[in-house]
């Protein structure tokens, strides 16, 4: 491993605590990923990135900052990357997915806040994540009450921009979101010192669309009954895509998709005969949260799709790049992003439609609907999801969990029982 200690020191990180975090990660990666058999060779890229997750990409970001580029840290798939990229900014995801950061978050947040929020706040305040140190500005959004209030706390420590996401999907809400994107663009111009033009915004839209298409190609390969990639590997690809350069991300995903398509032609599968195909839906799985996939894929089942922000919600639907004015392009962005069926909307029938559509397209034998503890929105929506799936004859298991390992046994019992039920 390259020596990043000086870089971490320069970032003002708490090296002693960070060492403890660095010690657990290789074991987790080994247990979850390297124990798998017959992995696609193209996963080597993501194996490398995750093995030095706090080194390789942060070092690149710092190099770009030296050239005067600004790094925007984001927490949500509603933030339009295209606007930042058009202004020559860089986007990096910031969501915390480790229990390591939760106690730091609980020091300033109520305990009954979702672990993603607690970990994100803990990662910033504890100074143990380089991405949280590097970002020049954070972009928050109003997708839930917990985040809204947590951003106020983060805002005391780091510059924050907040985008007001509508809570309904009427035409006037889409127009409101377009105005919000335009306001956001003005702030991004200010921070980067670069003007948005029709040309650079169109180019950015194309870059991000290419990334979406490449990710979709990998997911399309997962529809094959001859499953060419495990859910764990696909999840890792999706998680890292939030941090990577979009053009390289597209290139690597396409390279992986090439191999997966060849595997399908050659009849190479990672699933054992009789493994049940599971679609997962629910709240996001931020790095390094691999708990659910790992339990499922060691219980006689495979994950074939994630209807999640770390999944199809991130890359489905392209942005129309035919507009000839910034206003038209902002409107095209607004229309695309408002197709996201997050549980923050009321009503939200689109999510149920998505789950049913994806369960069919990916030939899922069953659906696992899992939310992070204290996420009221997704927890409440479990009922309507479950009723709609049962009406369609699709078996569903509803779960709730956090980042701790202490409930792994209970989760395993439920998941094994679900798989036994699918086996009849």
């Amino acid at each position, binding site marked *: 491993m390259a020596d990043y200690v000086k870089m971490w020191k320069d970032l003002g990180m708490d090296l002693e605590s960070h060492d403890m975090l660095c010690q657990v990660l290789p074991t987790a990666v080994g247990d979850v990923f390297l124990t798998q058999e017959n992995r696609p060779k193209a996963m080597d890229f993501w194996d490398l990135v995750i093995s030095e997750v706090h080194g390789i990409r942060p070092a690149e970001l710092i190099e770009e900052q030296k050239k005067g580029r600004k790094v925007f840290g984001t927490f949500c798939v509603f933030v339009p990357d295209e606007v930042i990229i058009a202004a020559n900014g860089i986007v990096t995801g910031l969501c915390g997915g480790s229990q390591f950061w939760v106690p730091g978050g609980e020091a300033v947040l109520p305990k009954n806040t979702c672990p993603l929020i607690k970990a994100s706040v803990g990662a910033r305040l504890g100074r143990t994540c380089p991405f949280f140190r590097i970002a020049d500005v954070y972009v928050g959004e109003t997708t839930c009450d917990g985040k809204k209030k947590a951003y106020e706390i983060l805002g005391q420590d780091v510059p924050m921009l907040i985008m007001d996401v509508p809570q309904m999907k009427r035409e006037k809400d889409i127009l409101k979101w377009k105005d919000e994107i335009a306001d956001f663009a003005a702030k991004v111009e200010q921070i980067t010192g670069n003007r948005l033009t029709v040309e650079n915004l169109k180019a950015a839209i194309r870059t991000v669309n290419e990334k979406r298409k490449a990710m979709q190609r990998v997911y399309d390969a997962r529809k094959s009954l001859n499953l060419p990639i495990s859910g764990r590997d696909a999840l890792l690809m999706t998680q890292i895509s939030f941090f990577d350069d979009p053009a390289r991300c597209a290139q690597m995903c396409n390279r992986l998709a090439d191999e997966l398509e060849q595997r399908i032609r050659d009849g190479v599968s990672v699933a054992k005969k009789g493994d049940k195909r599971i679609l997962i839906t629910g709240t996001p799985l931020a790095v390094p949260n691999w708990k659910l996939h790992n339990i499922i894929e060691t219980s006689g089942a495979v994950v074939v799709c994630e209807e999640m922000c770390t999944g199809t919600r991130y890359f489905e639907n392209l942005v129309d790049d035919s507009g000839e004015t910034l206003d038209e392009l902002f409107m095209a962005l607004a229309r695309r992003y408002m197709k996201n069926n997050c549980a923050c909307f009321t009503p939200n029938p689109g999510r149920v439609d998505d789950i049913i559509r994806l369960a069919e397209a990916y030939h899922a034998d069953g659906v696992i609907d899992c939310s992070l503890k204290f996420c009221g929105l997704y927890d409440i929506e479990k009922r309507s999801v479950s009723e709609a799936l*049962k009406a369609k004859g699709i078996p569903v298991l*509803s779960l*709730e969990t956090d980042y701790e390992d202490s409930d792994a046994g*209970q989760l395993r019992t*439920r998941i*094994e*029982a679900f798989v*036994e*039920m699918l086996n*009849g």
Partner: protein
Amino acid sequence: MDKRYGVGIDIGSTCAKSVAVDGDGVVVWHDLRPTGWSSVDTAGAIQSSLPEAVKAGQARFVATGYGRVSVPFADKCLTEISCHGKGAVHLFDAKDLNVIDIGGQDTKLIVITNGAVSEFVMNDKCSAGTGRFLEVMANTLSVTPGGLCDMASRGGETRISSLCTVFAESEVINLIGRGTPREDIAWGVVDSIAQKVKAQAGKLRLGSGPLCLTGGLCGFPFVLERLERAFGREVRTDPRARFAGALGAVRRLTGGKSRNLQTADG
């Protein structure tokens, strides 16, 4: 057909339940003991206490319950959800039924359709509504769990509202401090278990078949009474229902036959 003996071992958080059946599916032995602190040791003790004929006969073993992975000699492991479902189908002689299993650490509701599990829910980490909850409360009232249930049947309506065992214990201590009769507090404890199970049932669609209670509380009539009141329908049970998991496990070997378990508590 395979004429070897089959043994089902259900290692729960509190008690380990085992049954052995002969090649015709007739129950020839059963065993109930505390799980203790080591599931592996308990599994070993169960193995050595098997009848000589079973030991000599190359028996096959199916393990279930939370300690199922701690039975090194098991030929097969299955979850307690599948096994309780299978066991209940056999015990209550119905293809469609709804099972309430109140165990030491968790409470499950299992819907069986045409002999197979079609839906289930389990409580989360919290132990409210489980056998552990009853034990903690019995301890606070200085009685045994069975004693608490007897006492409760003589008590009057009292509500314990906390969903968490620790908070509910504080609530019970407050009631004691206020001089509420023990019988009334016991009534509240048992009723809160029934209410919690009923709330859990809201998360699935119960089938048309009978509602049946399995697990360690099936020998307590007042638990049954409060459950019947909460659900507004008959709740069946059977003295052998503590062994539902072990019976269900062994049924995986015998193709459905396992008869003649006469007593539950030995």
